[in-house]
C-alpha cells in the first residue's frame, strides 16, 4: 500500500545499480535490503562486497518490514521555502532481521508526539518522484508498548 507525497522537503536519490532495488521494491510492497549470499550478512547501504566475509556474491533479499524505533527527532525547521511548516518525525529504525541493520526514515501514521524509542513499527511505502520511500508506521497488534533496543 502506498500513500501520497507530503509537504516534507524531500530530494530524490540518484538511482544506481547498487541502490535501485531498495528504492523501487516498494512498488510491489517489498523492502529490499542487500545481503551477502555467502555468509547471510545483511548489508545496508548496498555494497559490491560483503564487509564481513568479502564475498562478491551479494544481492537483494526481502526483509519483513517490521522494525523498532532506535531513535528519532521531530523536525521543526522549514529547510526550504517550498516545504510545509508542520513538524515531522525523522527516525532511525532497526529492522528485526539484525540489530545493526538500520534505516533512516520517517515515522508516519501517528502524531509526532506519540513516537517513542523502542516503539514497534512496520514499513509502508510512499511514492515520491520515481522511487518508493520506505516509511514506517506504528505496528498493528502492539500489545505491550515499548521495549528497549540494543
Amino acid at each position, binding site marked *: 500500500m502506498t500513500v501520497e507525497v507530503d509537504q516534507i522537503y524531500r530530494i530524490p536519490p540518484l538511482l544506481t545499480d547498487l541502490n535501485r532495488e531498495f528504492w523501487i521494491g516498494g512498488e510491489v510492497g517489498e523492502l529490499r535490503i542487500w545481503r551477502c549470499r555467502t555468509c547471510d550478512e545483511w548489508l545496508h547501504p548496498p555494497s559490491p562486497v560483503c564487509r564481513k566475509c568479502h564475498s562478491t556474491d551479494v544481492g537483494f533479499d526481502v526483509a519483513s518490514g517490521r522494525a523498532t524505533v532506535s531513535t528519532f527527532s521531530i523536525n521543526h*525547521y522549514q529547510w526550504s521555502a517550498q516545504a510545509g511548516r508542520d513538524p515531522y518525525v525523522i527516525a532511525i529504525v532497526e529492522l528485526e532481521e539484525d540489530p545493526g541493520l538500520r*534505516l533512516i526514515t520517517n515515522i508516519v501514521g501517528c502524531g509526532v508526539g506519540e513516537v517513542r*524509542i523502542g516503539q514497534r513499527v512496520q514499513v509502508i511505502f510512499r511514492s515520491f518522484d520515481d522511487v518508493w520511500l520506505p516509511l514506517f508506521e506504528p505496528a498493528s497488534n502492539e500489545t505491550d508498548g515499548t521495549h528497549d533496543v540494543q
Partner: protein
Amino acid sequence: MNPSDAHAACITGVGVSEVGRNLGREPISLAAEGCLRAIADAGLTPDDIDGIAAFVPDQGSVGPNELQEALGLEVDWYQGFLEGPSQLGAIWSACMAVATGQATHVLAFHSSSEGTVRARLGKGGSLPGTARETPQRVTGERGWWMPFGAPSAANIIAMYAQRHFHEFGTTREQMGQIALIARENATMNPLAIYRTPLTMEEYLSSRMISEPFCLYDCDVPTDFCAAVIISRTDSVYGLRRTPVTFEAISSTRRSRPSWEGFDDLTTMPLRDAGAALWQRTSLRPSDVDVAQIYDGFSYIALAWLEALGFCGRGEGGPFLEGGRRIALDGELPMNTQGGQLSAGRMHGWGLIPEACRQLWGECESRQVAGDPRVAVVASGGGIVAGAALLTVD
C-alpha cells in the same frame, strides 16, 4: 609510524582572516589574508613556504593550486582534500610531509565563503553545512537522508543526542551548557559573531530546529580563512613563536563509518579517535589545561568529552551540569574563543589557532590562568574524527 615521530612537526604560526556571516568576499581574497597573516605570525616570508595543505570541501573553498598561484609560492609538497580524519586532516598530512622530509614549512589552511554562498542561494538552495548547491538528485551519504526530509547533519546528530538523553537521562539543560559557556567566553572575544550573554531561559525557550536541538545548539555559517604554519621541529631557530609541538595525533576509526549503522548511537566514530589519542603519549586527560573541541552542534562536543576520557561513557550530562567545569576558570576550560556556536562555523579550523594562542598566553581577558602547557584539539563529527595533543615547553 613511531609515535614519537609526531614530535618532528610543530606549529610556528597561526592566522585568521576577517570572519563574518556574509562578507561578500571571494574565497581567494579571504585565503590570501589568512595565509599571509599566518606566515607573518611565524616570522616567515612567503619565500620560506615549501608546502601547502588545504581542506577543500566544495566550490566555496580554495585549493592549493589557486593559493600557490595567488601568493607566488614554490613548493616541494602540496595536497588538497575533502575526505579524511576530520576537516583538520590537512594539518595531520602537513605534519607527515614535514616528518618525512618533504617540506620544511607547510602552509595549512581552509578558506570558505560558505556564509555568502548560502545567503545568496537562499533557503533550500544549498546543502546545509556546505557551500554546495542543492542537487536535483542526491548521492552519497545524503542520498539516505534527503529523501526523508533530513537535509542536514543537524537532523541526524539530533537523533544521536535524543538516544543519549534516552539511555543516560541527559537533559537539555546539561547539553545546553556547551552553548552557554561558549557564549560566556565569546563575550570576551571581540571577533566572535555572537557576543551578548545567553541565559538558560533564552536557550530553553528558543525555537527548535530538530529536537532536541534548538537554534543555539547549531553553529552559524561564515566566511573566513584560518591558516596554520607547520614546521620541522629542527628548523624553528630565529622564528617569532615558541613552537607548539604535536605531542600526539589520532585519526583512528575502527568501526563502521555509517551514520545509521554505527554500533553505538549514543556516540560516533569519534569514540575511536578519542581513545587512540592516549595510546601515543604518556600524558593523560588530567594533564590537559585547555580543550578546543568541535561544537558544530553542541552534542558533538558532549560526545567528544566522553570519547576523550574526560568523563565516562554516558556521563557527559553530569560532567556538564551547571557548566562551571568547562568555564574559563573551571577544571577543563573549553572553547575559550566562543566555539563555533558563538564565534562562527570554521569547520574546526578555529580550534588550533585558539589552542596555540592559549599556549602562547595571548588571549587577554579570555586567557586561561596558570600558564597552560597542554591543549587538546578535537574535530569532526558524524563519521569522521581527528584529535591532537599540543604542548609547549
